[in-house]
């Protein structure tokens, strides 16, 4: 087996690792060289990449396959290059302030970039609607905490929280109290109790008692505490889980790097 690439990886990796600890020459200088080489190699790779892109689409046009899309790409590609070259000749640089090449940026790239990014709002809404289902205990917890955090993070989300919770409790109470008769034994009892509990929560939230001059005291309690609760969820349980994952990631990447360094991991090379 051809072992030279493995040795190359080992030596280069070890060298870069030592440069991390040793701040005197020649290490920082050699590191700078390595980084410069990286830039040079990627510049050449870009040429190869552009070749791959253009040829891919030319072949597709030749095969009459998605001609419209591939054609648009090719036209856009050549127009950009030609316009850039023209701007170079006319304004001394494609990105000079008065250059018309900037129109491409300002009126095509900028709006399209912003559009793609803002599509996320739609996708998040539909993905959240599908994914947040109380399938079992842990996903119910996820659902509850996600709801609290979302409502706690918007200016009048706290005011929206109480009616949503109330409506949810009352609807569930209505459902359980309607269906409990269809069941036998324990099932019936449990459903009756759960239904009454939800009804109680709904009534407590809406109980119109004047307490210290306030109507709906429980309702207001929810309103006043939801922001604090959202903050607590973000700072404590969320942060704990995140740190745990981060810990795993750093150990995982360290072990992976060691496997690459000593040549056990060779999947990425030929």
């Amino acid at each position, binding site marked *: 087996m051809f072992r030279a690439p493995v040795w190359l990886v080992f030596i280069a990796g070890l060298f870069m690792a030592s*440069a*991390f*600890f*040793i*701040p*005197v*020459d020649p290490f*920082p*200088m050699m*590191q*700078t060289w390595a*980084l410069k080489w*990286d830039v040079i*190699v*990627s510049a050449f*790779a*870009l040429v*190869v*990449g*552009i070749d*791959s*892109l253009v040829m*891919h689409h030319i*072949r597709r046009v030749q095969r009459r396959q*998605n001609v419209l899309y591939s054609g648009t790409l090719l036209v856009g590609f050549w127009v950009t290059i030609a316009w850039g070259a023209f701007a170079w000749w006319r304004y001394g640089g494609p990105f000079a302030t008065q250059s018309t090449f900037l129109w491409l940026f300002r009126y095509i790239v900028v709006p*399209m*970039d912003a559009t*793609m*990014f803002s*599509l*996320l709002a739609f*996708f*998040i809404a539909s*993905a*959240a609607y*599908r*994914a*947040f289902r109380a399938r079992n205990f842990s996903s119910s917890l996820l659902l509850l905490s996600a709801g609290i955090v979302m409502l706690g993070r918007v200016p009048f989300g706290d005011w929206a929280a109480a009616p949503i919770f109330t409506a949810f409790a009352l609807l569930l109470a209505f459902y359980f109290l309607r269906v409990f008769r269809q069941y036998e034994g324990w099932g019936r009892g449990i459903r009756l109790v759960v239904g009454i509990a939800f009804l109680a929560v709904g009534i407590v939230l809406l109980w119109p008692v004047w307490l210290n001059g306030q109507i709906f005291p429980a309702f207001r309690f929810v309103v006043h505490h939801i922001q604090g609760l959202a903050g607590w969820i973000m700072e404590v349980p969320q942060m704990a889980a*995140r740190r745990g*994952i*981060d*810990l*795993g*990631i750093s*150990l*995982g*990447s*360290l*072990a*992976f*790097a*060691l*496997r*690459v360094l000593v040549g*056990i*991991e060779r*999947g*990425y*090379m*030929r």
Partner: protein
Amino acid sequence: MEGFFAILILNQAPELVPPQNLMVGVRSDGYWILWEPSPTDSLITRYEVFRDGQFIGRAGIGKYEFVDKGVSGPHTYFVRAVGGSRYLKEVEIWGMRLPLLFWKEEGYAETKPITIAPLPGFTASYEWQGFGFGGYRLEWGFRPQGFVEVLRKGAVIVTLPPGTQSYTDPSATLGQADYTVRDVNSGMEIKPNIRARWFAVHFRGVKVSWNQVDQGFTLMRSSETREQDMKTVDRTPPEPIAQIKPGESTFTDRGASGEIAALLRSRSPMSTYRYYLVSEDGSRVFFSEPVRPQPFNFMKLPVLIFDILFACVFFGFLFAAKQGKRMFIRKIAGLEELDNAVGRSTEMGRPIVYVPGIGTIADIETIASLTILKHVAKKAAEYETVVIMPNFDPMVTAAAKEVIKEAYTEAGRPDLYNEDNVFYVASQQFAFAGAVSGLIVREKPGATFLIGYYAAESLVIAEAGYSVGAIQVAGTASVLQTPFFLAACDYVLIGEEEYAASAYLSHNALQMATLKAEDVFKATFVSFIVLFSLLVSLGVSFIFLS
């Protein structure tokens, strides 16, 4: 009118005041002569610099420095201000204030000479401290409206901007925690919460020492930082840092620790510090040896120790596996499903799409993704399913082509490999996301694999895959993107599962053993966390920093 008076008052020299605070510093290319403008700066046309009585050069209007290149050893400098030949002055004549134009030959004003010399035995070195005390951290609950003063034993040590709620006092001494915080606006004083900070390795500052001197001196410091391109140099002129009393012969410069620590944290700290002793009348300057980076950055010592420990455990398990010891690794659902996803895609007669994310070849996540790609491509070759792979980075494109070709060859089907299915798309995040979603919607793959480094485009791509009903396997180490994948994909590799993938998929005992090293360290960390949480709950309060 002006001319008339000008002729009258010929030949009166302007009264010039010499430049102030002359100082000579040392830089890599020579001596650096600096001064502050004379109070009569508006009358001055140039400053002339003299070395050992000889004129060596001049500085024009608005320049208050001069570099005497290529000199070393003891020298004496002074600067002469040369005054204008024409100037306006208001003069009161018989009760009237008249602006008069004076026409005059040049006036001069010289500074006192200053002697610069190296001082033998004037050295400076880094002072490191192993595990130790690193100052007190103060926190206070109220939000001050005005500036905040922090008092230690009744004396103000620092003034902080309005609204500040915490401060760390690095120059504190252990056991002396008498602090008060005062809101300047309201005059309210409170006692802050105090926590001690402990360092694993602590950089205390630069220790400067010299042979005992008999008179008082001002200690100054200048710095010179070279950037990675070796051309950019950032220089700070000598700045006073302390007053030295007669008889003292050492000083620890803690003020430098913040700056030097910042430089040491950067990858290539090519910086030099130099110290000066300036006599009280400003006539003599002695400079020290330059302080250069040490051959080993001790701030990273904990990292090195940790790395070595980890490597030991890693190789320990490796050799244990070689001896034939069997190890248990838990099932990872996302990786178990890789083959099923390829199989389902084959049944449906659709291609599979593999997206390596927006990382470059330098990202470890991309390398991990390529190892998973090899496994997927091999399975696809066995099932004769097409693999389409759009790429963000041209280098990854080149590497991916090789990986897929190799996988097809290993599966014994090199004839199925079509180079046209692995292509470069765009190196702009959302252009890439748009192109990939379009590709997925058009090709309607049976399975998509979104494995690698992802940022905000994760959900755009994953939703496209969901909309065409593909089985989706996603994996990223980015904690921010994992939730999006969880919402839109069927199987998700969370955190380090992506890195474990190739070892897990290979079913090679040697590789599996290395995963065990991670588990050992994770268990150690967890026990440390539990231990210190208990200690903090019991009232032992501290912060660790490296």
